């Protein structure tokens, strides 16, 4: 009972504080669209934000990074979201009236389905590049077995599962592979939609997840959050320093902590160097205008993003996302202040 009242009081205090800190005028609706990968988090923010600022409504649609940028550029939305930030050409199209703000981050994992192996698979750089290029064909290949002496790997063909649709996830994943292997760079290359030399493809993170779950011998790349929510097992990957790192929120945060963000916040982590860094991680960006036509909208966007960068960060781990390092969040908040 006592704790209950304290809790209620705390909540009330928080609401009062939030209400005083966020000057949102009478009912304003802001809409955004973009990346599907952070969509669950943004939707959570939107519904939580509504509680602190009842007059502001935030609509977010996970339509994909490319479509999000297009919608933002054509003025259909008040803010956008993209896993690959924006290219210089796209920024030019916006007339420079755009800020790229890292809002959260995530890792991409190689999830597998090998009957009899519940956890603990380690993949060296040669092994996962070989698998994805189709040169390593079965799970008991010496290249895989070398680092997994404790596992009994079956003589099962490997089915590589990739994305059939254009995707920021693919772009981040392939840019890592490009950085790691010259062979991959010449044969496949990086981008939102590439041609994989082997395997099958599914639409969206969920399509890939379903294919992995259903196919014995499958391995595919999905966002950490999807893998965690769907109870997929992910392989420990060898990083640049040579250590095998299991994908967790902590190892992802370690990777992010070592990133040096440039002035425009557009930093791609292709191959982090830290000894304990998980090798494939990425920021994901919110795209906001520097100058809004309506002051109400500007205030609402600022309030929403501020909420996401402060209170919103605490819910990130439970949904499988990585909390932004404090130093990054501070810099982003400072940049957000310039929005008018």
């Amino acid at each position, binding site marked *: 009972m006592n704790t209950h009242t304290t809790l209620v009081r705390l909540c009330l205090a928080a609401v009062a504080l939030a209400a005083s800190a966020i000057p949102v005028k009478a009912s304003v609706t802001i809409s955004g669209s973009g990346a599907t990968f952070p969509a669950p988090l943004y939707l959570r923010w939107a519904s939580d934000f509504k509680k602190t600022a009842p007059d502001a409504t935030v609509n977010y649609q996970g339509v*994909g990074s*490319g479509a999000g940028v297009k919608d933002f550029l054509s003025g259909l939305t008040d803010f956008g979201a993209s896993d690959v930030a924006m290219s210089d050409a796209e920024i030019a199209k916006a007339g420079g009236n755009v800020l790229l703000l890292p809002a959260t981050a995530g890792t991409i994992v190689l999830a597998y389905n090998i009957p009899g192996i519940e956890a603990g698979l380690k993949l060296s750089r040669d092994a996962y590049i070989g698998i994805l290029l189709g040169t390593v064909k079965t799970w008991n290949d010496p290249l895989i077995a070398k680092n997994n002496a404790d596992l009994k790997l079956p003589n099962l*063909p490997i089915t590589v599962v990739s994305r059939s649709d*254009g995707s920021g996830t693919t772009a981040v994943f392939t840019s890592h592979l490009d950085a790691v292997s010259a062979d991959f760079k010449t044969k496949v*290359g990086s*981008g939102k939609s590439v041609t994989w*030399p082997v395997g099958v*493809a599914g*639409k969206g993170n969920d399509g890939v997840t379903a294919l992995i779950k259903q196919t014995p011998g499958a391995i595919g790349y999905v966002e950490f959050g999807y893998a965690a929510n769907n109870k997929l097992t992910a392989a420990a990957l060898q990083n640049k320093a040579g250590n095998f790192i299991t994908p967790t929120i902590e190892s992802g945060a370690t990777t992010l902590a070592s990133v040096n963000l440039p002035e425009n916040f557009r930093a791609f982590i292709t191959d982090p160097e830290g000894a304990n860094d998980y090798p494939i991680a990425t920021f994901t960006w919110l795209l906001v205008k520097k100058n809004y036509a309506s002051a109400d909208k500007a205030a609402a966007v600022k309030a929403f993003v501020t909420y996401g960068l402060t209170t919103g960060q605490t819910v990130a781990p439970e949904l499988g996302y990585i909390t932004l390092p404090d130093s990054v969040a501070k810099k982003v908040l400072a940049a957000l202040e310039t929005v008018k």
Partner: protein
Amino acid sequence: MGVTSIPVGSQRPIIREYRPRTDFFKGACLLASLATVLLLAFILGEILINAWPAIHKFGFGFITGVQWSPNREVFGVLPVLIGTAASSFLALLLALPLGLAIALFLSEDFLPGPIRQVIRFVIELLAAIPSVVYGLWGIFVVVPLVQQYGAILADKLGFLPIFQGPAYGNSLLTASLVLALMVLPTITAISRAALVAVPYPLREGAYALGSTRWETILRVILPTAASGIVAASILAFGRAMGETMAVAMLIGNSQRLSSSLLAPSNTLSALLANQFAEADGIQVNALMYAAALLVLMTLAVNMVGEAILRYTQKSTAGLR
């Protein structure tokens, strides 16, 4: 007798004099049909306008190219064209004998009428199942089956190019099997209608000449209904070619050229559904080019169908 007689000349004539005036109904019909034609022209025009940059840039090489790599702006759809034709053809190959057998069974008096009605209703109900449900059913039922038996096929018959391993669950064969089921009601319903329409005296004549039931079916009824059966096959082929959702869920979405039925493949409609949302720049034009090719293929199939239909109608004209 029961009709009250009206004195002649005591009433005005009931039928009014015909006076020509503006025929609004005719005008409305003309407008509606013109609108349909214009709409089609508009869609085609829009596709071609958007496809033009790609047509201009890639030309014929787009059709003969075997690589589809949007990240390198290399676009070739030959594997996808082959996948489209192969999956539809295979589906037809599987569904036609089955559908025709069902249609025959339901049009002859093998079973009492009410039971035939029930079977017919159930088969036509297959057409009412949404595509995505077929896709899900395929994922949970057909994919594991193909994976399991495909591996055996690849093991025993792998020397044949069409059964070359490794066997995938999401493959051309899986998509074709589900497509076959999806086009089955089309084939059955139209073939049955054609078989029922065969004039009864023809059967009686055949029996009177001493034919057995099977001789009558094979020599008289089937040839007479041939045009309807061909029409059914073409409609089914067209439907299989345009089918998107279930195929995208089952075919494996790979743009690699492969001779094996057990390898993943792709179709034009699945490619469009998968890549359109996130495409930008020249990729949009390339996808529009692919869409134009799909329209062209459907048109070609319909024209061939029409030609076959006319030919068979002519050759069986004497029987009617």
